[in-house]
């Protein structure tokens, strides 16, 4: 029931948020309430809860709830950041739709339903891309987005049918498996903007999407990647020439993404582009997890997906806050930003720690394991190279922040706390001036012009009043007024603190906190459904363990998976997650 509650909140919130779009404040309230409700429902999701919906059983797991909580928390935090830096109108409904789709996908016991729901979860990216439809980039972005959608949807559906069917008329069943592997990997690679398919992501970064980038490049690809990884060891773990060739092709894409993504981040000067290429680079690890085809890669891959979701959300929020606070997104104009915004600097350091970790930390080990299992021995140096390349552009960002501030940065307030400098007036004098006021009121002209530097500042208010008159300030400020002004003055501080909070959560999760390490061992419902499937062509995957090793039972006894062959006891896998007896498919 907890899953059904989560889905209901997401769908209702999506509809209400879209319906209330004309009313800005109401729409924001509904969006925040829906995201908060979704977060609460995800946090309260019980591991062994199940429900039957449309003839299909949906079951929750610990990791599934954790992953949905991470998605909901990231969405909520980014929307709150958006309240300060510029409300991303369509991010909240798109996030709610995506969470609903991902929720069905990772809890479904029917693989076809899972892939169809995962494909449906990719469609909301158009909500983000549609904001730029009337810009010169609009048509290009729209075409790219629709092409991505077409490829992901068709690949997901064809992968489902390819994986599920065992009656192929083919002499070499691994050809079918290779085809399925390629379409699954292609869906993940295209949606995450891996290097040959990075043009839509680059276009999005230039279109000024800001916070919306995170939906298209982080949340949707991780949901899709999580579903794709379910087949990894159980279905694609068989040896075969065609499959090996397909794996090599995906490895090439992954390596190109790891290297060229970092190079792209180093070469670009707009922080949105740096952020996008950084996301693209780290999405290469999802492809590496796919190429690993090993149960040993499942736990690190899940931990990496958790860290990736929150850390990259924090990075996008960081970029949006920095652009807003300093009124520029060009790295050349952002010289000295760190001096003016030390909290943002701390947040960036936390993001780096959450993304890269250090030797011995869970996220560092997860990255290392994925490189070790996903690439041949001769390419293992790429793990270190990826870290160094990532460090290079992160250090570049920090180093630019330490330089002498530009005029633009100096003019911006930064995130130091401020108190309004308002004139002090004694109340007694005010009381004595009542009579004289009338004379002055009569003598004074109805409006005055202001010097040019004040003109810009007053334009917003005078335009809002509609009479062209310059506003005047109330010199008598109560403590309530002062607090209100201080609240507005310190918006950069508030935004920086929110980004820091998001980055801190990301770092805690990346280091295994909040139970992330344990949760990442439990897997999702689809893992067990996939493990119970026979391989196409009746192939046996040999020594590969087919079911995910789980430290604890993640699905309750009520879950009825697809009928599987009689279980055959196999030697305990060498998975780091502790061994449990597994079943071997392919009977």
């Amino acid at each position: 029931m907890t899953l059904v509650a989560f889905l209901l909140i997401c769908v209702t919130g999506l509809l209400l948020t879209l319906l209330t779009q004309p009313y800005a404040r109401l729409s924001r309230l509904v969006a925040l309430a829906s995201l908060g409700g979704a977060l609460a429902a995800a946090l309260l999701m019980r591991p062994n809860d199940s429900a039957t919906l449309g003839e299909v059983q949906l079951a929750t797991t610990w990791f599934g709830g954790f992953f949905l909580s991470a998605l909901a928390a990231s969405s909520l935090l980014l929307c709150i950041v958006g309240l300060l830096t510029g409300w991303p109108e369509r991010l909240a409904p798109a996030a709610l739709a995506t969470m609903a789709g991902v929720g069905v996908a990772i809890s479904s016991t029917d693989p076809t339903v899972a892939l169809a729901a995962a494909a449906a979860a990719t469609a909301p990216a158009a909500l983000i891309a549609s904001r730029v439809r009337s810009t010169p980039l609009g048509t290009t972005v729209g075409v790219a987005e629709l092409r991505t959608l077409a490829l992901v949807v068709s690949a997901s559906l064809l992968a489902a049918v390819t994986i599920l069917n065992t009656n192929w008329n083919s002499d070499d069943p691994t050809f079918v498996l290779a085809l399925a592997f390629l379409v699954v990997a292609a869906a993940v690679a295209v949606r995450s903007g891996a290097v040959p398919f990075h043009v839509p992501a680059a276009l999005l970064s230039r279109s000024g999407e800001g916070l919306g980038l995170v939906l298209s490049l982080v949340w949707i690809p991780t949901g899709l990647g999580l579903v794709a990884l379910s087949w990894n060891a159980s279905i694609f773990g068989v040896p075969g020439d065609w499959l090996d060739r397909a794996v090599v092709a995906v490895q090439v894409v992954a390596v190109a993404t790891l290297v060229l993504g970092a190079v792209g981040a180093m070469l670009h000067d707009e922080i949105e582009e740096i952020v996008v290429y950084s996301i693209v680079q780290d999405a290469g690890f999802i492809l590496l997890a796919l190429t690993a085809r090993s149960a040993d890669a499942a736990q690190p891959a899940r931990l990496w997906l958790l860290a990736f979701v929150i850390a990259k959300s924090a990075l996008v929020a960081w970029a949006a806050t920095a652009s807003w606070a300093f009124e520029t997104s060009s790295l050349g104009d952002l010289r000295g930003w760190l001096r003016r915004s030390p909290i943002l600097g701390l947040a960036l350091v936390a993001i780096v720690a959450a993304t890269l970790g250090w030797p011995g930390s869970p996220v560092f080990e997860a990255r290392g394991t994925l490189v070790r299992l996903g690439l041949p021995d001769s390419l293992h140096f790429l793990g270190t190279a990826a870290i160094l390349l990532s460090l290079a552009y992160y250090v570049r960002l920090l180093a630019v922040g330490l330089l002498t501030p530009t005029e633009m940065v100096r003019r911006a307030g930064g995130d130091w706390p401020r108190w309004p400098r308002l004139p002090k007036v004694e109340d007694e004098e005010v009381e004595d001036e009542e009579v004289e006021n009338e004379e002055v009121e009569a003598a004074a002209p109805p409006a005055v012009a202001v010097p040019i530097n004040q003109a810009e500042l007053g334009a917003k208010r005078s335009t809002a009043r509609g009479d062209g008159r310059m506003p005047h300030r109330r010199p008598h400020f109560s403590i309530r007024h002062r607090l209100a002004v201080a609240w507005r003055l310190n918006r950069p501080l508030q935004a920086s603190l929110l980004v820091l909070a998001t980055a801190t959560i990301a770092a805690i999760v990346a280091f295994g906190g909040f139970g992330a390490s344990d949760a990442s061992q439990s897997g999702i419902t689809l893992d067990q459904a996939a493990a119970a499937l026979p391989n196409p062509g009746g192939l046996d995957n040999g020594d590969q363990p087919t079911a995910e090793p789980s430290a604890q039972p993640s699905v309750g006894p009520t879950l009825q998976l697809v009928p599987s062959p009689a279980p055959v006891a196999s030697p305990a896998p060498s998975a780091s997650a502790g061994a449990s007896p597994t079943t071997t498919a392919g009977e």
Partner: protein
Amino acid sequence: MLDAAVFAAVAVVLGGVVAVTARDGRIVVLGLMLVAVAASLVTSPLPGSLAVTARILGAMLAAYLLWAAAGSGTADSAGSAIGLVAEGAVATAAFAVGLAITPVDPLAGPAEAQAAGLSLIALAVVPLAGRDVFRMGVGVTLLTLGSSLLVVAWSGSAPALEQLALAALLVGIAGATSLLIPSSEADEATEVWAEGANAAGPRTASAIETLEATDWAAADAAAPVEESQPIRPAESERRPRPMTADPLEPDDWLAWGAPEAEPRRDRARIARRAPGPRPAETAKPVPKKRPHTRPNLGGKP
């Protein structure tokens, strides 16, 4: 004896040909709706009434979204470059191939579903290669429906939840297409938006800060007393709008209790406390003091 799936498959192909070749956006939408509705029936046995209803409602909603976009007059399709007959021939050939091949033996679903699916995928290739957003949306829809028909043919009937997911997917694709179509209204709205943004000035952190912290008393005192004009900053004074700022949004969402416009007595304080002469004495001769008149409420004159 002909099965209902055969008629549905033929309807799918006909609808696909219409959707690809028609130039009027509304006829394209009707063709797509025919494809989406008929595709849910190309199965044997027929799915439950709940699943069919979900698919039909999804098809109608998707068609409505596209119809709304087409109704604006900006979503007409470019039509087929090779014409109705050629598209029909392509669809027929793909249909025949779909009936002939057996990649899966035995098929779990009807062969007509495989044939119709291949036919739709063949029809979708050319629209997907173009740069017309509306036509590309048509291609994505046909590709999705074609893939779903292949799933039916190779894996058998889908459960109700999968039908629901497919319906949601179709609605999502149609919504995405209707949102991504560049419209003339959107262009005009953008111009108005940009105009408003320029006139209102940037909504940036420093602008808000300075606005709040400005010593308006001094500003008023120093200002020449002239009839004020609607203020529009010079081009050089405008700052770049940050990517996340949205000038259409009210900026006081969180600023409850922010100071409003001045009360009457403020002018006195401004005039007294500001250094230098009073504003009224600087530029303009002081206008005649208005006689202090009170409304005659029927008392003494």
